[in-house]
C-alpha cells in the first residue's frame, strides 16, 4: 500500500510544480513587454544523457526566438520515464504544455480520445508535407487527422559481426535458407548466432514481425492488427511456427527470455554473438561512438532480413517513427505553437543526423552531408523502402500490446503452440 501512497504523493508534487510553473509564466508576462507570447515546450532529452540532442534543441529555439521577436519559448526537460509520467498527470488536469513530444499510434490514442492534442492537418497542406518520408506521418494519424509530426525514423536491420562470419567462411545470407545455414554453421562451431534480449519482449516481437512480413507479405500484419483480416490466419501461424523453429535450432543466445536488451547488446558488442536485430537508433555504436573500440566498429555490417517465399520483399522493413511533436488542444497560442513546430521540424531535419546521429523523419539529402557510409547506406535503404511496418506493440492499444508482448515471450519459450498464439491474438484484438 505504500506504493500507492508514493504514487499519490508524486502526483501531488508534480501538480505543485505545474502550479509553480504557471505562476512563473504570469510573472514574466506582466514584467516585460505586453506583446510577448510564451510558448511552453517540454522535451525528453536532458543534457546529461542526450547532450547532442539537447544542444540541437537549444540551438533551434535560440534561432527561432531571434527570428520571431516577441516570442519566448519556455523549455522544460525531463528524462524519458519521468516525461511519460508527467505528461499523463498533466493531461488529466488539462495542463499540457503548448508543444510537447508524443509517441505514435497506440500511445497517442488515449490522448486523442481525451481531446488533448490538436490536429495539425493545416500544416501538412503546403510544401512542408513533402519534407517527410512518405508514410511516417500516418503513424500519428487517427481518423484522417494528424495529431503529431515525427522527429525520428528508424528501421531494424540485422547487424552482424564480419570477423565471426569470416572466421567460419560465411557470407551475408541472400535467402532464408542461407540464413538458416548460417545459423547452423555457427551453432555447430559453438558460437551463439543471434543476440536477443527477450525479457524486454519487443525485441522478440521484431523477429516475429519480420517473419510475418516475409511469409505473409508486407501488409498482412498491419491488416490483422487493424481488424481488416483475422490474426488467426495460416500465414501468421506459419510465421509463429518458423519463429519456434529458430528457437529449436538454438539460433538465439542461451537464456534469451531472461536477458534484457542491454544484456543482449553487450553480448553482441563483446563478439559473443554473431548477429543482432535492432533499430537503426543503435547505429552510433557501430559507426561514430568513440567509446566503442574502433576495431569492433569496423567489423560490423548489416543486412536486410532475407526473403522467405514469393510474397517476400526484402525492401520492406519493420521500424517506424519514434517521438513526434504535438500541440495541445487547449493551448492559448495554438497558431504560434504550430508555427514553432514547423520550424523545429525543418531545422531538426537538417541537424539531427550529422550532429546527433539520429535519422530524422524528414528526407535527408545524402549527397549534401558528410556521413559514415553505414548511415548513407541505411538512409538509402530508407529511401528505397517499399514499406515500413510500425512496431506491433506501438501499433496496438496499450492493453492489446501487453497481450502481444506476453505471447511473444511465451512463443519464444515454446509455451504456446503457433496456433494458440494467433488465436489468442485474435481474441485480444477483437475484444
Amino acid at each position, binding site marked *: *500500500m*505504500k*506504493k*500507492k*501512497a508514493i*504514487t*499519490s*504523493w508524486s502526483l501531488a508534487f508534480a501538480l505543485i510544480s505545474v502550479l509553480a510553473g504557471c505562476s512563473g509564466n504570469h510573472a514574466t508576462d506582466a514584467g516585460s513587454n505586453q506583446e510577448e507570447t510564451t510558448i511552453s515546450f517540454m522535451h525528453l532529452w536532458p543534457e546529461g544523457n542526450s547532450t547532442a540532442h539537447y544542444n540541437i534543441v537549444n540551438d533551434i529555439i535560440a534561432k527561432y526566438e531571434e527570428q520571431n521577436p516577441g516570442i519566448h519559448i519556455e523549455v522544460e526537460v525531463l528524462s524519458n520515464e519521468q516525461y511519460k509520467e508527467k505528461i*499523463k498527470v498533466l*493531461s*488529466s488536469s488539462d495542463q499540457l504544455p503548448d508543444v510537447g513530444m508524443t509517441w505514435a499510434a497506440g500511445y497517442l490514442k*488515449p*490522448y486523442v*480520445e*481525451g481531446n*488533448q492534442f490538436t490536429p495539425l492537418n493545416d500544416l501538412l497542406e503546403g510544401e512542408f508535407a513533402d519534407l517527410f518520408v512518405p508514410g511516417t506521418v500516418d503513424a500519428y494519424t487517427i481518423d484522417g487527422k494528424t495529431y503529431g509530426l515525427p522527429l525520428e525514423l528508424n528501421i531494424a536491420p540485422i547487424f552482424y559481426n564480419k570477423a565471426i562470419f569470416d572466421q567460419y567462411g560465411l557470407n551475408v545470407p541472400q535467402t532464408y535458407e542461407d540464413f538458416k545455414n548460417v545459423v547452423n554453421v555457427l551453432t555447430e562451431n559453438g558460437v*551463439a548466432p543471434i543476440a536477443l534480449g*527477450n*525479457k524486454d*519482449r519487443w525485441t522478440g516481437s521484431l523477429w516475429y514481425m519480420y517473419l510475418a512480413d516475409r511469409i505473409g507479405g508486407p501488409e498482412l500484419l498491419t491488416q490483422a492488427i487493424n481488424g481488416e483480416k483475422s490474426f488467426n490466419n495460416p500465414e501468421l501461424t506459419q510465421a509463429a511456427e518458423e519463429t519456434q523453429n529458430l528457437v529449436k535450432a538454438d539460433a538465439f*543466445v*542461451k*537464456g*534469451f*527470455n*531472461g*536477458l534484457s536488451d542491454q*544484456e543482449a547488446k553487450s*553480448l553482441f558488442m563483446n563478439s*559473443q554473438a554473431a548477429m543482432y536485430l535492432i533499430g537503426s537508433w543503435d547505429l552510433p555504436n557501430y559507426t561514430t561512438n568513440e567509446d566503442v573500440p574502433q576495431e569492433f566498429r569496423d567489423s560490423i555490417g548489416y543486412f536486410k532480413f532475407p526473403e522467405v517465399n514469393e510474397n517476400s520483399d526484402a525492401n520492406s522493413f519493420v521500424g517506424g517513427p519514434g517521438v513526434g511533436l504535438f500541440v495541445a488542444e487547449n493551448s492559448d497560442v495554438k497558431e504560434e505553437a504550430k508555427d514553432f513546430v514547423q520550424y523545429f521540424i525543418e531545422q531538426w531535419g537538417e541537424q539531427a543526423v550529422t550532429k546527433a546521429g539520429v535519422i530524422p523523419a524528414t528526407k535527408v539529402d545524402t549527397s549534401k552531408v558528410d556521413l559514415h557510409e553505414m548511415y548513407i547506406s541505411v538512409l538509402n535503404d530508407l529511401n528505397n523502402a517499399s514499406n515500413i511496418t510500425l512496431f506491433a506493440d506501438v501499433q496496438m492499444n*496499450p*492493453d492489446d*500490446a*501487453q497481450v502481444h508482448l*506476453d505471447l511473444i*515471450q*511465451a512463443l519464444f*519459450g515454446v*509455451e504456446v503452440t503457433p496456433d494458440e498464439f494467433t488465436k489468442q491474438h485474435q481474441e485480444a484484438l477483437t475484444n
Partner: protein
Amino acid sequence: MNKVLSNKFMIALYVLPALILVAILIFIPLGLTGYYGLMEWSGIGAMKFIGLENYKEVIKDPKFWNSVLHSFLLALFSTLSLGVYLLISLILASKIKGSSLLRKIYLIPMLLSSVAIAQLWMKVYHPTNGMLNRFLSILDIDNPPAWLADPSIVLYAIFIPILWQYAGFYILIYYAALKNIPEELIEAANIDGATPWQIAMKIKIPLISGIIKVTVVLAIVGSLKYFDLIYVMTGGGPNGASEVMASYMYKEAFGSYHFGYGSAIGFFLLIITLVTTFFIRKLTASKDDVQY
C-alpha cells in the same frame, strides 16, 4: 505529565500531527484505491463508474491467482528460512570466535538497495557469462540451466536473493533477543547437566517465542506484498512465471493502462494480506509469553 494527559484537548493536539500524516499517507490512498477499483479508468481522461465489475473480473482472472500462488510460495519459503536464521543466531550468540564479524557480514545485504542486489544477482545468474554457470561448467556440468529464462526454475532462482537480502535482518533480531536471555538461566541449566541442544530447545527458544511470532508475521506480510527484485530481475516473466501480486498489479495499472483494474488487484492484495495476518495471529496465539 498527568495533568497534561488529563486535558483532552492536549491529547488531541499531540496525536494530531502523526494522525494527519498517517491519514494522508496511508488511509486516504487506501480508500482511494478501493474507490478507483470501481472505475473503468485508463489513468488519462475521464473515469467511468462500473460498480464491482473489476473486482468480479479479478476473482475470475487465472493470471491473478497464479500470482497469488507465487506470493504464497514466497511466504512459505521465507517462513521456513526463519528456522535457518534462528539456528545461525543460536550459534552466533553462543560466544564463538569472530561472531561479531560474522554478524556484520550477514547484515551487509540489508545495506544494499534492492536494485543493486538485483543487478548483482542478474550477473550471477547470467546464462553464459554468469558466475554460477561458469562455476558449473568448471564442474563439468553440461548445459547448465538459464536460471532466469526457464519458467520452471525462475521463481526459485529469484527466491534465493530475496531470502539472502533479508537474512541479516532476522539474524540481527534473533541475536538481540537471544542476548537478552538472563545468563543465570543458562548457567543453572548447565549445572543441572542440560546439553546445548536441550538448552536451545527448552530454554532459549521458548523464551524468545514472542519475537519468533513477530518475525513470522513480518516475513509473511513482507513476502505477500513483495515487488522490488522481481520487477527488476524478470519483470514477472517469462510469460508470468515469476509474477507476484504486486508486480501483476503494477503491470496492469501502468503497463496496460488498466488503472481501475490495477486498483482492484491492489485492494485484493490488501485483503489477502490482512486475512493471512489475522489467521497467523490466531494460530500462534498463546496465553502468555513464556516466563521463567
